[in-house]
């Protein structure tokens, strides 16, 4: 059975279910307990699970991740929350080296079943330190799985799968989606990694949307249908490592056109990766270049005008789609 939940509560439900299911699961993060978490995802958990399992820490991102790594190596299933993905920049050696490479460096002896959760993305005028979309920095790192849920159901299902993973997983939540509502299956709902979902089938072009970009893509598809009679297929990869490239390629083989929508910076972005892969592997199917709509290559300004200008609207995405179709 499913009911309507917010993205925030879907995450909270996943945490509770995993805490209930597996005693090895514990949460570590800044102000996740007494303060309920900066975005209230961990609301009430301290009262219900106690301070052994819900561990408040000061702001020390690198060490928090490192502690999670060590605890994971010695048998626990820690879930570490970083208050904002920008804090992950201070912890990137622990993420990229300690967490992601331990299995490899030890020849398979060590296992780091660690989950790192963090919000990213703009929309609330938080300016240059709290608004960025950094999934591409995380994706660059081999040995690290990356999930980017865009719906409450996926938020729950991907987080639960992340907790069961033997490998470290970075679950990147979108700050502007915490309040978004959607149907969420009750109980054991696991979204497998590496399975994209076609959010809307279509014939004329394929739009791949990353994180909240998947929702913008859906809105753009509406515009394209309503105003131009065009049928866009919208794909949400849901996880970036593993990436379900076959589903994207299969779609492009049918539509012969691809547009990628992401909020991150364009240089080295996820869109660039997918564009490079698709044109490498399906060049002969493409009737035009793989196009991208990315965030502007600039820090995020505080001004809401500048913040908005840095991200394309659904209408602008629709325009880019028209351009991709040569119109």
């Amino acid at each position, binding site marked *: 059975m499913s009911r309507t939940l917010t993205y925030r509560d879907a995450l909270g439900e996943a945490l509770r279910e995993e805490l209930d299911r597996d005693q090895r699961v514990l949460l570590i993060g800044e102000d996740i307990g007494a303060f309920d978490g900066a975005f209230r995802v961990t609301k009430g958990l301290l009262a219900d699970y106690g301070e052994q399992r819900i561990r408040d820490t000061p702001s020390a991102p690198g060490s928090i991740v490192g502690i999670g790594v060590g605890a994971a190596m010695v048998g626990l299933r820690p879930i570490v929350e970083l208050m904002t993905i920008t804090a992950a920049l201070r912890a990137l050696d622990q993420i990229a080296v300690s967490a992601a490479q331990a299995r490899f460096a030890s020849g398979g002896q060590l296992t780091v079943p660690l989950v790192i959760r963090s919000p990213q993305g703009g929309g609330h005028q938080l300016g240059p330190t709290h608004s960025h979309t950094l999934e591409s920095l995380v994706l660059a790192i081999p040995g690290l799985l990356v999930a980017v849920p865009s719906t409450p159901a996926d938020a729950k299902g991907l987080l639960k799968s992340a907790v069961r993973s033997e490998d470290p997983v970075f679950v990147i939540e979108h700050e502007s989606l915490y309040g978004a509502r959607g149907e969420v299956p009750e109980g054991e709902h696991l979204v497998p990694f590496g399975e994209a979902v076609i959010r809307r089938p279509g014939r004329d072009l394929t739009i791949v949307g990353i994180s909240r970009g998947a929702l913008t893509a859906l809105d753009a598809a509406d515009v394209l249908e309503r105003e131009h009679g065009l049928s866009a297929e919208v794909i949400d990869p849901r996880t970036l490592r593993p990436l379900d490239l076959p589903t994207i390629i299969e779609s492009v083989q049918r539509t012969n056109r691809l547009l990628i929508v992401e909020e991150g910076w*364009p240089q080295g972005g996820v869109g660039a990766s997918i564009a490079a892969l698709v044109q490498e592997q399906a060049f002969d199917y493409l009737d035009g270049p793989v196009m991208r709509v990315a965030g502007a290559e600039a820090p995020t300004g505080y001004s809401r005008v500048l913040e908005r*200008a840095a991200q394309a609207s659904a209408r602008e995405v629709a325009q880019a789609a028209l351009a991709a179709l040569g119109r």
Partner: protein
Amino acid sequence: MNTPVTSAAQRSLPDPATAREWLQTMQLLRRFDERAGELYGAGQIGGFLHLAIGEEAVIVGATRALEDRDWLLTTFRAHAHALARGSEPAGVMAELFGRVGGLCHGRGGAMHMADLQRRFLGGFGMVGAHLPIAAGAALASTYQGRAEVTMCVLGEGASANGVFDESLGLAARWNLPLVLVVVRAAGGYADDAAAAGAAAELQRQTEGLGIKTLTCDGMDVVDTQAVCADAVRIARTERRPVLVQAPTRRAPTPTPTDPRPKGERDEIAAWKARDPLARFGDRLVEVGLLESADRARLQMQVGAVIEQAVSFAGRSPHPDPSSLYEHVLSPSSGDGAWRGLDVRGTTRRAEVEPHPREATK
């Protein structure tokens, strides 16, 4: 934990003009925050707006220990520091409105405000990130043979981050004229302010790093100024880092982005009794340094200044969306070779050679 080391009453007051200036600046900060809070509620101001109601004494006291040539850095709780350092309230308010008339032309907002002319380097959104930057500023002064001091204001939350120890360690090793002012605001955002003995712990930690450590009553502008002036003097003349702990208490009323901690309902009254602005004003009146009417007049002037600031901010235009790439790089890098990569599917295509419709093959 909040017990001041030196009771406020023991510190003698500065000369009347100075005392009045301090009071009026505190009034300015208070009224500005009250208005900003309202305007935030009304949707005129966005983002995280960290108010400083209750920190007026520590902010004014600390900045009044500086000379014009000194440098100042603070946390995300930045706009009050800009005001205290002398930035135009209109420019500060316009920044909160995200307008071109803002100190940073609407790009930084409350958390990242800077005013270079006043040697206020900002406004730093990441907890602790400004500590090494402050050390670097102090290094630049020393290196260039100038007797400037850098003051870095931080919340106690930053002291658990490794940059605290790293920066203090390097500042001590390099004899940098750096004053850290740790605002330990109970009833704040982070949980650890609640930990008993945290101030003593920090003192031990800091002294363990070999740093001279002082404490002031952050609820008393006179004491804060006196202790910080001492710290600044030591930093300037002895060329070494000094840390000042300032226990304070922010108003326990809900604020836009610091939601109200639990169980503090009864504390509002208690806080009012300690309100640093009211107490300082009362004291000035009591000792005859200020007439009650004068006090009201100062307050009225402040009110007028702030309404002008609000009005200026409201009239100032929003940045033009086309200015998005301004200041990403300096003109020397940005002209010609570089242009922001605005990937909108089509934008850059036009900038390249005209495209043949057909392939050349």
